[in-house]
């Protein structure tokens, strides 16, 4: 006898989740309407901090979207069975997060109604324009990749599609890093280290998101994840965290080395108020050290620990992006090296920024889009990882 009441309550929970996600999307839509009607005056952004909270959300989603594909690549390109079983879920997450991130990015534009212009008037020298191609290409490639996995007749093409996705996602994260790397005039950006840094960060962030979603799906289906599998992926997460910490440290060290950038580094790492706090506490301690402890400390590293570690990594990601994007703009642009400057346009001053509720609504709207796509897809299609009895490869 099947326990129907249980089924009903699960069903009800599913619709409650959909409603919550839908509400968050509506909140985002409301923010977009308000921002389009009143202009960006109702956001916290201004002429000094031109990219704000929406960009933190959008870049997190896009970077994590490319990073989560790593799980798929390890399966398809490097042939690891444990990861291969997770490739469909990883691909789905990638599509979902890309959609959410792009939605935020596009709806934050000053003229979102003109988005079609970005397709009709294409500037070959613009990294943004390259990214338009990279993002849409990624979208279609991942869809094809999913198709090769879920449709038996397409299976022979799976390896090729997996390889294409693997290459494309590297190019894509490079493109995301280049958005900043090409801004040579700004102390915070304009570094060749940024694309590789974003790639390594994407590994950690993508895997962290994957861990959380995987856990939820297993719980939903009342299945337990084989501890041996968790053991492997959690160690990988640990390696990625160490790697990303290394990249971020290198980025700051190289900046310290250039005399011109020293003021900026002191600002971000010591004197800048919220920025050093977010960096050291948010990113380093909560986003890296604690997760590493949770993963590697003897006696820890169980499912719950890995879950908390993964969530902390995501939190740290937001902290780092806030410091990187907003802190990077808050520090004054050095137009006259060697001079003290002042003007009515905040020259020589630390720019202030207070994100408004609309920016958060928009950002969470993006997260909600990713959430809804994932929830609905997981329910209607089979994305549950199908593990064979565990064999170490």
């Amino acid at each position, binding site marked *: 006898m099947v326990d129907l009441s249980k089924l009903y309550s699960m069903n009800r929970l599913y619709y409650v989740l959909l409603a919550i996600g839908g509400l968050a999307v509506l909140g985002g839509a409301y923010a977009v309407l308000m921002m*389009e009607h*009143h*202009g*960006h*005056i109702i956001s916290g952004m*201004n*002429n*000094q901090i*031109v*990219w704000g909270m929406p960009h933190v959300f959008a870049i997190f989603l896009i970077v994590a979207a490319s990073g989560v594909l790593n799980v798929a690549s390890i399966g398809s390109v490097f042939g690891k069975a444990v990861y291969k079983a997770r490739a469909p879920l990883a691909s789905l997450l990638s599509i979902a997060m890309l959609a959410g991130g792009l939605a935020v990015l596009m709806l934050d*534009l*000053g*003229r*979102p109604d*003109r*988005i079609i*212009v*970005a397709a009709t*008037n*294409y*500037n070959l*020298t*613009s*990294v*943004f*324009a390259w990214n*338009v191609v990279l993002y849409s290409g990624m979208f279609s490639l991942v869809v094809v990749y999913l198709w090769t996995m879920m449709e038996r007749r397409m299976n022979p093409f799976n390896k090729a599609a997996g390889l294409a996705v693997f290459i494309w996602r590297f190019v894509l994260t490079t493109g995301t890093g280049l*958005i900043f790397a*090409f*801004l*040579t*005039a*700004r102390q915070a*950006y304009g570094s060749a280290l940024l694309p590789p840094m974003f790639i390594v960060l994407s590994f950690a962030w993508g895997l962290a998101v994957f861990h959380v979603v995987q856990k939820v799906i297993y719980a939903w289906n009342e299945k337990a994840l084989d501890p041996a599998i968790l053991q492997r992926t959690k160690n990988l997460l640990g390696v990625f965290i160490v790697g990303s910490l290394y990249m971020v440290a290198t980025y700051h060290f190289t900046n310290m080395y250039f005399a011109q950038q020293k003021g900026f580094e002191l600002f971000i790492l010591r004197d800048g108020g919220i920025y050093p706090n977010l960096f050291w506490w948010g990113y380093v301690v909560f986003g890296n050290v604690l997760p590493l402890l949770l993963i590697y400390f003897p006696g820890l590293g169980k499912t719950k620990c890995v879950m908390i570690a993964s969530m902390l990594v995501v939190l740290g990601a937001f902290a780092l992006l806030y410091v990187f994007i907003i802190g990077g*703009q808050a520090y004054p*642009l050095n*137009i*006259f090296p*060697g*001079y*003290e*400057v*002042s*003007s*009515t*346009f*905040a*020259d020589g001053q630390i*720019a*202030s920024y207070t994100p408004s509720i609309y920016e958060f609504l928009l950002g969470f709207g993006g997260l909600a889009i990713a959430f809804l796509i994932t929830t609905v897809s997981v329910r209607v299609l089979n994305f549950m990882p199908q593990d064979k009895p565990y064999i170490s490869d």
Partner: protein
Amino acid sequence: MSDIDTQRRQFLKTSAGAAAIAIAPGMMLYQTVRADTAAASSKVRWGMLIDTAQCKEGCNDCVTACNKENGLSGKTGATDSQWIRKIEIKDISNGHTVSLPMMCQHCEHPPCVDVCPTQASFKRADGIVLVDRHLCIGCRYCMMACPYKARSFVHETLTDQNPDVPRGKGTVESCSLCVHRIDKGQIPACAEACQNKAILFGDLNDANSEIYKKVRSAATVQIRADLQLNPGVRYQGL
């Protein structure tokens, strides 16, 4: 060929001829009008030379004139547009102070044009860097890329703009070198307003122009020359 065909051809020929005669005067008239309003020429490179020795601290005439000419509010809040601003700079090593106007430097290799995804930022043939607001989607990447912080984003709905200077919410804008005045043969409003003649406007390519001679005789600098953008605005006395 049938008879009808021949007839039709004949008819077409005659009517085409008649039409040409009828249109010709109009065409000619059209062309003479056009000649007065020729396209910007790549032989010209508009630029400015700012003599900081003549620029007085506390004087804001260029800014006021710009605001009036281009219909800016003149407010200086964090979300208000400023196309030109006065910067006071003080040498950290010896305390020497200089006051100077800062605006779009109209680079030969403008980073804003490089990064613009839609070609809304562009450089006109005569060296003026502009935003085509019909194409601007308001992504603000150009503001991130500009080394001079020359650009502003319109954060609010605007009304009663100057008919010569269309500008509106959701797009990026900056000093246009008063392109609407230049096309009429006038000089930019800031250059005209400066009482001390600290702003010299002219064609950097014209051997007979004052600016051409002056940049070759006096010591002038380009700001952030290390970036090799070759700005059209030069400074003297820095």
